[in-house]
């Protein structure tokens, strides 16, 4: 007992003293990157990290100083993420926080942002609670739930093979899933799309065996499924649905864009999933094509929308720091308002009124990929493009509503 305490104390003291405190010639500007690297969403987190790293490398310097990214694993657990944010800001002196995949983590950070006193830009959080949530909390990344719902409903209405179907709504049982399900159902009903279960099904995130749900869908007679799953579960569900012979008979519409590696893993079972997204590598314009190749050459992995919108979000943040002219939190926050970046998927503008981005989106369907340099077997084919104005929502000044 005594020996243990002695040893552990001496280890601790040694570690504390050895903890790096490098004196650099030119002090870099430190940015804290919070992404999940373990847990259910680890793959998405890794792609986000790639996108942000790539942006930092290409941007090179802000305010004449090198950018230094400090990456921390949130483990998709809000309390851990808050601890990590505190460490990044208090101990490592980060000037801004970026990243964050899940809404729960994003909201927990937003709650603590007054204490942390740095701007926080999320590149993935989809909750609509982020609109005007806090003067220092921003979104520039994946489409929000309301935007996704609008895009998907528009997409369904625009496609005859999707339009006259009854949709079974199945979501992951956590806040984003609930939000995505409810928004879709409300909008679909308004537009005359038939919903089988308005009291949508909430499946635990841990669900591995979807057979019960698939049997339920079979029993219901619905011929469409609207699903809101964490992205790496999309191919899992699609595969099991295909096993049960539902592929083609029941159309799948997804609230979240599946990652390319996940699609590749699912193989042919993942053909035929519809959904809106910021971007897919099928988007054909010089900026996009160029970005794809840069990404591929650096990371040798198929470019994903998680990577690209994290890249764009990071660019918006870096440009805002330059624009602010200092690393003062308030100045960066002010500079982020209304900033925009022309990237692989067009202009991405952060609204000056509600701090969340507006950009164009594409409706995609997954299918066998044509020849491509990335070796992808399945890709998200672009079917339609929806301009930012159509996706909304209207920009309005929202009051600071942390209690929501």
């Amino acid at each position, binding site marked *: 007992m005594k020996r243990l305490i002695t040893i552990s104390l001496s280890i601790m003291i040694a570690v504390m003293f050895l903890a790096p405190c490098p004196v650099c010639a030119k002090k870099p500007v430190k940015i804290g990157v919070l992404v999940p690297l373990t847990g259910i969403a680890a793959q998405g987190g890794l792609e986000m990290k790639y996108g942000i790293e790539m942006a930092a490398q290409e941007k090179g310097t802000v305010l004449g100083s090198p950018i230094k990214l400090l990456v921390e694993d949130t483990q998709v657990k809000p309390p851990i993420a808050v601890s990590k944010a505190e460490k990044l800001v208090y101990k490592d002196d980060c000037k801004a926080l970026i990243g964050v995949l899940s809404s729960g983590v994003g909201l927990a950070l937003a709650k603590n942002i007054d204490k942390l006193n740095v701007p926080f830009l999320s590149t993935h959080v989809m909750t609509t609670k982020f609109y005007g949530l806090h003067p220092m909390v921003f979104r520039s990344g994946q489409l929000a739930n309301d935007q996704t719902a609008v895009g998907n409903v528009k997409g369904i209405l625009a496609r005859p093979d999707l339009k006259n179907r009854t949709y079974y709504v199945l979501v992951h049982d956590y806040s984003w899933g609930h939000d995505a399900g409810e928004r879709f159902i409300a909008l679909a009903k308004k537009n005359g799309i038939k919903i089988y279960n308005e009291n949508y099904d909430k499946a635990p995130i841990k669900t591995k065996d979807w057979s019960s749900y698939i049997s339920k869908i079979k*029993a219901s007679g619905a011929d469409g499924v609207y699903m809101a799953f964490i992205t790496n579960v999309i*191919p899992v569900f699609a595969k099991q649905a295909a*096993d049960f012979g539902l592929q083609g008979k029941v159309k799948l519409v997804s609230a979240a864009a599946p990652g390319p590696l996940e699609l590749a*893993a*699912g193989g042919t079972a993942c053909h035929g999933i519809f959904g809106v997204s910021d971007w897919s590598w099928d988007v054909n314009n010089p900026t996009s094509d160029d970005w794809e190749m840069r990404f591929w050459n650096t990371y040798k992995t198929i470019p994903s929308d998680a990577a690209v919108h994290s890249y764009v979000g990071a660019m918006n943040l870096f440009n805002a720091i330059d624009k602010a002219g200092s690393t003062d939190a308030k100045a960066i926050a002010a500079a982020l308002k209304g900033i925009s970046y022309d990237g692989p998927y067009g202009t991405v503008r952060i609204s000056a009124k509600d701090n969340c981005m507006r950009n164009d989106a594409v409706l995609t369907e997954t299918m066998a990929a044509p020849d491509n340099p990335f070796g992808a077997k399945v890709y998200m084919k672009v079917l339609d493009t929806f301009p930012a104005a159509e996706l909304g929502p209207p920009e309005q000044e929202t009051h600071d509503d942390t209690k929501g």
Partner: protein
Amino acid sequence: MSGTLGIIVDITLNSLVLSGVFLIVAIGLNITYGLSRIMNMGHGALYAVGAYVGFSLVASGLNFFAALLIAPLIVGVIGLIIERTIIAPMRKRSMAYTLILTYGLMFFLDGSIKYIWGNKPRFIELPGFMQGTLPILGTDYPVFRLMTLLLIILIMGALMLFLNKTKIGIILRASSTIPEMVSCLGVNMSYVHMGAFVLGCVMAGLAGIIAGPLTTIDPLMGGEMLISSFVVIVIGGLGSLRGAVIAALLVGVVQTLAEFFITDLAMVIVYILMAVILAFMPRGLLGEGKFE
């Protein structure tokens, strides 16, 4: 799409498949516990290792059925190394040490899986004839799920034969009751303990490669299966093989029904079931340590 009969068939088969996977994992855990009083917290991680090894074997072009044989053996070898290096030296110490030790092992194996295979989900490619569905009693049911069910029955049958008909099996059964007397008959108990641990690991690996094509392979599959199998063995009675069979069926059926009819509270119901059973039968349905 399918009528009432179809739904009933669907639910029945779904719950049997789910129960079957629970059973193979839980039986492995119970064999180890029943014979050497070691509760292996790393069992779930070994299940995941089995699935990943199976995936790698199939992806490298090996026949699925060959992988089905080789993957559990590889997990068994890993189990053997673990047993000889860290478990065996701890055997004389109290159970808490092995609990914590295997808890550390779980972290280590989970981390290693992510290091080797990454985070993305993996699927085991099945041979062509196992794909597709088979119409039975008003529903279409996936062929390979039916074959999985068959496989699980075969494995349980083989295990039963092994325990009842072979000399090693008889030694194992005897060791679960009066180990002291077994050693007096000239059996080295340290080999029995080793064998029990390795057999548990082989079962975990087997369950892994069986469950791989059913669901998906990801680094979290182990931890979740560990909790489910704890629920099963606790309800059945620690170390009780028959108890595990009954409990696996019970949990599988209850979970499937709950998922089908009252989706939201499925897991709560399973936990309440466990709490109620334990409150009235603190030693589980069949009592502890009935190794038969």
